[in-house]
């Protein structure tokens, strides 16, 4: 927690309403995001109980599982969900766009837009990940056949769950995280996980403070939990008798239909408030202007979506239960790079985020007081353009002489610290030598060198391209990491013995889900 964010929390508590911690929206928001509010059955291993799904506030579709312990009904739920999700995904596969690749030397095509899934909280992301895990190895044939769309659903859900771990991706978002990225409440991070309480702070109903609205939201009889876990009292008092009534009415079609309708009504009542909150959250986020680098990160999601769609089109198998050593190292490296770049991009896009870095001495803001845009360094073999500027700041400048700084206004330009001179009036003069971002000639084009009077932010954070690391091929996995994996497992786990416990096995199609 940065001091700046912590201070925003203190201010939120005093003001009685959440305070902004961002001035722009740091994530892409689709025109028609698919909102998914899942509920799970208590005590079971990720057994779906119900879900509200839809891409617009008035398009909510309720899916329920009247007997959540029944295997057939679970897969029927998965097939029903696939019947909504897969057509939604396909709707993004019509239009493609050209994107430069290999630093502009080549062009490849990707889908012009990508799907976006929204769930209420991180537990919702976990629910989808496990639902993906429990369905992606299923088979439409064999002993326990499922609808062909079920394994496809599993693969896509796994794809989204993996994207959700990728910093800066907006393919699958938890609403609580999307909101706390932009607002600080007067309650703790634990309490912020409760979507109704969080929105109570951000957008309290008229006449209520954020604290009062959050307190009200904690009463499960007024405000059902945002799932996937249900309120135990609801389970015991309402859900259990209704499920029992449904089960007992097996022989009587009329009574069974009535029990089913009652179950639908109960579950809809539990889900509908969260549904409303999800769209209120979408509205609040949409009201913020997007940050400058948001579209670039969404391009990454479009690339990933295109890549995975092509993998499936080519008959690619499901994601393995566990990554091999090389795949895991590559993935970790990719996530680390994404995390670094995401943090830098948010700071570049948003002065309020950059302020956190100014406070910790990673950035300062000052006024340009001198500029020599024509300065040429001819001490080397060839003369090169090396303009110098002097910046005066009231902020501390802990960067040493020789350090390289960047400015969000000119991200391609490096500024090397030449002199740092603390003044008597608490101000500091910093002389910087510039290189890059000024064309190839010995004269800087207008606007490429900061002019006297310009207010400039300089930071050690760099949004420059991070080269990818080098990793061995899987068949060259060093012995320190278990050596090369055994022969590639059969696709779809075919031929794996009952139990599927063989190391490296790709899942077990006979694995029960009971």
């Amino acid at each position, binding site marked *: 927690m940065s001091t700046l964010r*912590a*201070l925003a929390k*203190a201010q939120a508590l005093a003001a009685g309403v959440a305070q902004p911690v961002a001035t722009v929206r740091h994530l892409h928001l689709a025109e028609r995001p698919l909102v998914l509010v899942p509920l799970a059955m*208590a005590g079971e*291993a990720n057994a779906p109980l119900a879900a509200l799904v839809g891409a617009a506030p008035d398009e909510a579709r309720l899916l329920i599982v009247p007997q959540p312990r029944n295997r057939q009904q679970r897969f029927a739920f998965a097939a029903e969900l696939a019947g909504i999700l897969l057509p939604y995904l396909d709707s993004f596969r019509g239009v493609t766009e050209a994107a430069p690749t290999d630093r502009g030397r080549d062009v490849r095509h990707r889908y012009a837009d990508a799907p976006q899934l929204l769930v209420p909280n991180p537990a919702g992301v976990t629910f989808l990940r496990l639902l993906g895990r*429990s369905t992606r190895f299923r088979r439409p044939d064999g002993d326990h056949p499922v609808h062909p769309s079920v394994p496809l659903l599993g693969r896509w859900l796994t794809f989204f769950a993996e994207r959700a771990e990728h910093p800066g991706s907006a393919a699958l978002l938890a609403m609580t995280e999307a909101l706390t990225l932009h607002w600080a409440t007067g309650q703790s991070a634990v309490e912020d996980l409760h979507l109704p309480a969080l929105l109570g702070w951000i957008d309290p109903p008229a006449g209520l403070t954020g604290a009062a609205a959050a307190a009200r939201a904690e009463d*499960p009889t007024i405000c059902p939990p945002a799932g996937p876990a249900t309120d135990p009292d609801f389970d015991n008092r309402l859900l259990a008798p209704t499920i029992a009534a449904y089960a007992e009415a097996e022989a009587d079609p009329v009574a069974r239909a009535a029990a089913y309708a009652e179950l639908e009504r109960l579950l809809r009542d539990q889900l509908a408030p969260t549904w409303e909150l999800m769209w209120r959250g979408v509205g609040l986020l949409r009201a913020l202007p997007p940050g400058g680098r948001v579209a670039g990160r969404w391009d990454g999601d479009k690339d990933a979506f295109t890549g995975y769609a092509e993998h499936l089109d080519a008959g690619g198998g499901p994601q393995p239960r*566990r990554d091999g050593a090389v795949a895991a190292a590559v993935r970790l490296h990719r996530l680390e790079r994404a995390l670094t770049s995401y943090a830098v991009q948010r700071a570049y896009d948003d002065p309020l985020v950059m302020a956190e870095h100014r406070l910790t001495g990673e950035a300062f803001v000052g006024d340009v007081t001198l500029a020599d845009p024509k300065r040429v360094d001819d001490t080397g073999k060839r003369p090169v353009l090396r303009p110098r500027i002097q910046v005066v700041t009231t902020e501390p400048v802990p960067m040493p002489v020789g350090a390289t700084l960047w400015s969000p206004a000119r991200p391609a330009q490096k500024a090397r610290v030449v002199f740092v001179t603390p003044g008597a009036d608490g101000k500091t003069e910093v002389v910087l030598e510039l290189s890059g971002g000024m064309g190839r000639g010995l004269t800087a084009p207008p606007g490429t060198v900061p002019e006297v009077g310009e207010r400039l932010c300089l930071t050690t954070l760099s949004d420059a391209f991070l080269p990818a690391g080098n990793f061995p091929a899987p068949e060259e996995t060093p012995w320190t990491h278990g050596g090369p994996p055994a022969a590639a497992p059969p696709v779809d786990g075919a031929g794996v013995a009952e139990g599927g416990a063989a190391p490296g096995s790709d899942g077990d199609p006979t694995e*029960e889900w009971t």
Partner: protein
Amino acid sequence: MTSSARRLAGIRGGVPPRRHNARTIAALTGNPGCTRRAVLDSAGVDKPKLAERIGFPARFGQSRFAITRGNAFEAQVKADGGVELLRLVAERLGVPVPAGASWTDLGGADDLPDRHERSRAALTDPGEGAALFDHPLLGLDVAGQRVHLEPDLVAARLAGRFHVVEIKSFPVIDGQADPAKVAAAAIQSAVYVLALRELLAAEGHDPEQVSHDVVLVCPRDFANRPVASLLDVRKQLLVLRRQLDRMARIDALLADVPADFTADLTADPATLVAALSTVAARYAPECLAACELAYFCRHEARGHTTALGRPVREALGGINEVSEVLALAAGERAPDPEQAEAAALLRAAARLRADALAGDPA
């Protein structure tokens, strides 16, 4: 009855102390620095009722679906005299699966002294063969009172060592389980290890006969087939011992508690609230998941930086009150010498925030 025991009984009022179980003892380790909790738990006060009485009811309901599922899984694992369980445990421990094992169910009868005696006799019987003991009745001293534990657990004696076997119904999917649930199971198992060791030591046996490796049996993946994992609970044992020692020294804590302190449920709610406020709590948001009194303590801690979470408090330089933070940040208040550094940081933060929100170009 010692003076402390009399004092604790007085605090509780005219009711017998609330019975502890492994879950409540495990919960004691959650916030060891909280005096209020140590005193109330030592006195055996019915905290859920107390919280309700003062208008801050706890929300620790359990779904009957979860209970049913837990019982069904346990029954399944223990079926057939524990044959499957014995195989799982032996394979996980890497010892040869014994051809057979005795199965002793020590549960059943309500007569506590008799059950305790049977458990003691069975567990200290110098048998060498593989044996499984179901529902042993164990005891622990908590704050000077003997607490009986009736675990739904199995103590397995294999290759001359005892292992606590804990059966839980949360799934282990691809070798991973919910970390919070594993942590809770580990600390609960540590309570049993401790109690089992005390029982052996009291009979002159080596307490180290009880392994610190606990066997956790859970459903594997999405099915009902059980899988066994080993949990090393040495760290939990340390934490537990420290907190039990602290509660054993309750005299020292009670010395700072006002003489008229009461948690008697028949008292007036206003009296109870007034009394509670005389014994310091150490509220943190994590309490909400662990302590029945947490909603009251949270209410009381309003306006304090700790209520926003420990990381927030640290980021604010450890200043206690939110109003003080804001006054220092606004420069409306001269900082104490030890706050000078924090105050400078807060002032800088406030200025930067205000600038950025005012759209000052940066």
